[in-house]
């Protein structure tokens, strides 16, 4: 591969519009700068970082170049990305706590019970909120399609439908197999089953990623009124609160159970692929970390929304003043 091609490949980290505007000049600069010596790894990483920042700016997640309403929309979409991560981790949590209540009985588990219920209700209310947000934007999507804009949103939507269909087919097959297996085999006793479940989990994670990416891509293209964007941002802020409840509940549940029921934490999911002898097993650590990552993204989005609302209010006051 020629040096120019290598530099052009590096520019893929930047948004398309930026590349068409500045790409040639930047490639020429890199050719001149690294004419004698190769480009160091640090330089390549710096370009990648700059490209990602430029994409974030274009999306309205960074900087103040876009309007307050666009920044509110971007902040809300960042919250949606965080929600996808929390939902994914929540699915791990649901699998981990499968049969938890029926296997353990007796008093003295108030905190873990309350935490578990908080996680469940946080998840349910969060899903309701996301559904309300979807209902809010569907008329705008229909209007876009009717106005001949299907081509601009076709690719992410078709991709999501295909990946979703694959996940549904895999899930049906997995459930059908699982129904023929005894409890022990389904919970670590059968290594091939654990591998298939691991593969299925990866597919679900990819499907969630593709669907979230499509939702972000499509919503960015929609014509949304100021009132609708403000409603969506309010939903996003409330969703962040539920994500915090889910995270806190999961953490409280895991810590309480690792202290009060270490045997369950060690044995509940058997001795297969996902387990070890710790009372705070790796799968719980990963679950909590992914939730934390999602929550961090959501808080960042919420702060972005709050700042944009503040800037929008200031602009409004400025417009009203003589």
């Amino acid at each position, binding site marked *: 591969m020629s040096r120019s091609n290598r530099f052009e490949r590096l520019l893929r980290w930047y948004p398309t519009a930026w590349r068409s505007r*500045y790409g040639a000049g930047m490639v020429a600069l890199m050719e001149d700068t690294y004419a004698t010596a190769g480009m160091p790894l640090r*330089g390549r990483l*710096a370009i990648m970082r700059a490209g990602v920042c430029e994409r974030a700016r274009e999306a309205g997640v960074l900087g103040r170049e876009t309007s307050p309403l666009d920044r509110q929309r971007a902040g809300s979409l960042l919250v949606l990305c965080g929600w996808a991560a929390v939902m994914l981790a929540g699915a791990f949590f649901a699998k981990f706590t499968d049969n938890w209540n029926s296997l353990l009985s007796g008093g003295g588990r108030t905190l873990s019970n309350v935490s578990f219920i908080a996680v469940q209700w946080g998840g349910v209310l969060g899903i309701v909120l996301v559904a309300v947000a979807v209902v809010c934007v569907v008329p705008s999507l229909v209007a876009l399609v009717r106005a001949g804009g299907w081509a601009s949103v076709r690719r992410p939507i078709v991709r999501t439908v295909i990946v979703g269909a694959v996940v549904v087919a895999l899930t049906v097959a997995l459930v059908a197999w699982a129904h023929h297996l005894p409890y022990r085999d389904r919970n670590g006793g059968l290594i091939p089953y654990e591998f298939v479940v691991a593969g299925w989990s990866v597919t679900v994670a990819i499907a969630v990623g593709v669907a979230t990416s499509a939702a972000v891509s499509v919503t960015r293209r929609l014509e949304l009124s100021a009132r609708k964007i403000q409603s969506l941002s309010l939903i996003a802020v409330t969703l962040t609160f539920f994500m915090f409840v889910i995270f806190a509940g999961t953490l409280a549940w895991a810590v309480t159970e690792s202290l009060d029921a270490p045997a369950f934490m060690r044995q509940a999911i058997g001795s297969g692929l996902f387990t070890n002898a710790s009372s705070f097993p790796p799968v719980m650590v990963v679950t909590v970390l992914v939730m934390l990552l999602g929550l961090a993204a959501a808080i960042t989005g919420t702060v972005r929304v709050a700042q944009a609302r503040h800037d929008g209010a200031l602009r409004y006051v400025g417009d009203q003043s003589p």
Partner: protein
Amino acid sequence: MAKRTTPVSGLERNNEPAVLILTSLASGDKHGYALSKDIEGFAGIVLGPGTLYGAITRLEERGLIEPTPSDDRRQPYRITAGGLAALSAALEQMRQLSEIGTSRLGARIATSRLAPGGIVPGYSL
């Protein structure tokens, strides 16, 4: 925590690459590589391609610089009237900051000379 305010120049505080680029363009139109070499020469700072073009993008968006016609892939830029005003305001701020810093540092060194510990080694005004 310090609260950031937008200065008169329109350039955010500590926006060093932007000020360096405007300073470089104040002496004439330049393309990316020429800017990079000029800045390295007068400030001793090497701006990587990502940083340089990030700053160029922001400056162009704010109308402080503009591209000039070119047949080459190397795109030259020139400073605009708005850019000159922004640079002037940024340099004035730096001058004020420099004066205050110099005056306070001078007072501190003078006090140190009178103190039993003596003056700070290596400092002279």
